């Protein structure tokens, strides 16, 4: 009986916290991709709770009913080999659940790997996010600016983050906009996101990358398109241009605050060409194979500095 109460109490605590006043980051989406994921998560939590409760109920029932202290001393448990029907049900029901979840999973996977729902027609903002020990560099090739450790984004427009790394594998993650994706040294991965409304968000590297990993975070500011344009203009008016020398200095291992530059490092230190993980990059992936040699040689020159 103790067990039962403990488990009930546990389930209620979890449920209370999950649906509590202070919503958990992942379950408090601010963009369509995170919404898809949060819906999937909640749905699976409910289905899984059903399974857990069923198993708990059967367990408690048999434990109470068939414990030795309740049986007569001469009770001899029967020999039961198994029963086709019962076992078919035990296989069939999980299969149905798994099929249902598989369909959900595949559908959502294609959704999060494409331009966010409701934003299809619009021109995406392309931002190159590259990590170095233990910083994030954001390059806006179209706007011609570069920031370190913070990223400003226009709300209500699709975002295309192009991810790569100047060192260990990192993982670019803004929980409230959507799930993470790896940034690696030899290829560019693409993460499709969008913010529904202006607001301040947390972003971080989620993949362990060495001593400075814990502080490897960045600030995300979603703002209206007009504010964003204003900010871009302001940067062009006030910030200094990024030079190769300056950029190599930024790449040195350590922690830095926020900083802003005009121009991007892509001009002198381009992203690896092998382009991966974008729904529309299928055509150029063949090409990427052939480009490989050249991209590697370029990368090597980048690395000789650091």
């Amino acid at each position, binding site marked *: 009986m103790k067990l039962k109460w403990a488990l009930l109490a546990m389930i209620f605590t979890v449920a209370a916290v999950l649906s509590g006043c202070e919503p958990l980051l992942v379950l408090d989406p601010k963009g369509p991709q995170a919404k898809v994921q949060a819906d999937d998560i909640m749905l699976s939590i409910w289905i899984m709770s059903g399974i857990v409760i069923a198993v708990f109920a059967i367990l408690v029932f048999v434990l109470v009913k068939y414990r030795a202290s309740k049986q007569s001393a001469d009770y001899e448990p029967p020999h039961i080999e198994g029963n086709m029907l019962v076992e078919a049900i035990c296989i069939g029901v999980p299969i149905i659940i798994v099929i249902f979840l598989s369909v959900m999973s595949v559908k959502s996977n294609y959704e999060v790997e494409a331009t966010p729902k409701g934003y299809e027609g619009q021109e995406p903002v392309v931002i190159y996010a590259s990590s170095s020990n233990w910083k994030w560099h954001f390059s806006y090739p179209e706007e011609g600016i570069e920031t370190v450790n913070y990223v400003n984004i226009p709300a209500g427009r699709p975002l295309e983050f192009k991810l790569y790394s100047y060192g260990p594998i990192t993982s670019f993650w803004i929980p409230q906009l959507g799930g993470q994706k790896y940034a690696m040294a030899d*290829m560019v991965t693409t993460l499709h996101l969008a913010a529904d409304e202006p607001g301040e968000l947390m972003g971080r590297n989620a993949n362990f990358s060495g001593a400075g990993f814990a502080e490897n975070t960045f600030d995300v500011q979603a703002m209206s398109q007009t504010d964003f344009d204003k900010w871009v203009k302001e940067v062009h008016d006030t910030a200094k241009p990024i030079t190769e020398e300056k950029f190599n200095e930024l790449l040195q291992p350590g922690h830095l605050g926020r900083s802003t530059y005009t121009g991007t490092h892509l001009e002198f230190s381009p992203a690896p060409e092998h382009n*991966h*993980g974008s729904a529309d990059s299928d055509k150029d*992936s063949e090409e990427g194979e052939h480009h490989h040699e050249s991209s590697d040689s370029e990368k090597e020159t980048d690395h000789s500095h650091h």
Partner: protein
Amino acid sequence: MKELFPIKQVMGFAFSLILTAVALLVYFLDMSFTAGITILLVTAFIQAGLQLVVFMHAGETEDKGAIYSNVYFGILVALVTIFGTLLIFVWDM
């Protein structure tokens, strides 16, 4: 002297040389990737099977069920690993 060269093994050796020659066609003839790789897959796996049965006597004891299951399981896992990795790293990248 003749008993030292059983016909089964001599034929097996001759056949494996022929298979090698067939596989060499992909080098000497100009053919598409698909055709070439198909020839290689076929010749390589037949040769492997040949070695297994003719030379290694895989099926000669009462354990042949276990031995063949072991080899098949190994091949299955090997193929899944190879093609799964190719799926991740090349075909769906």
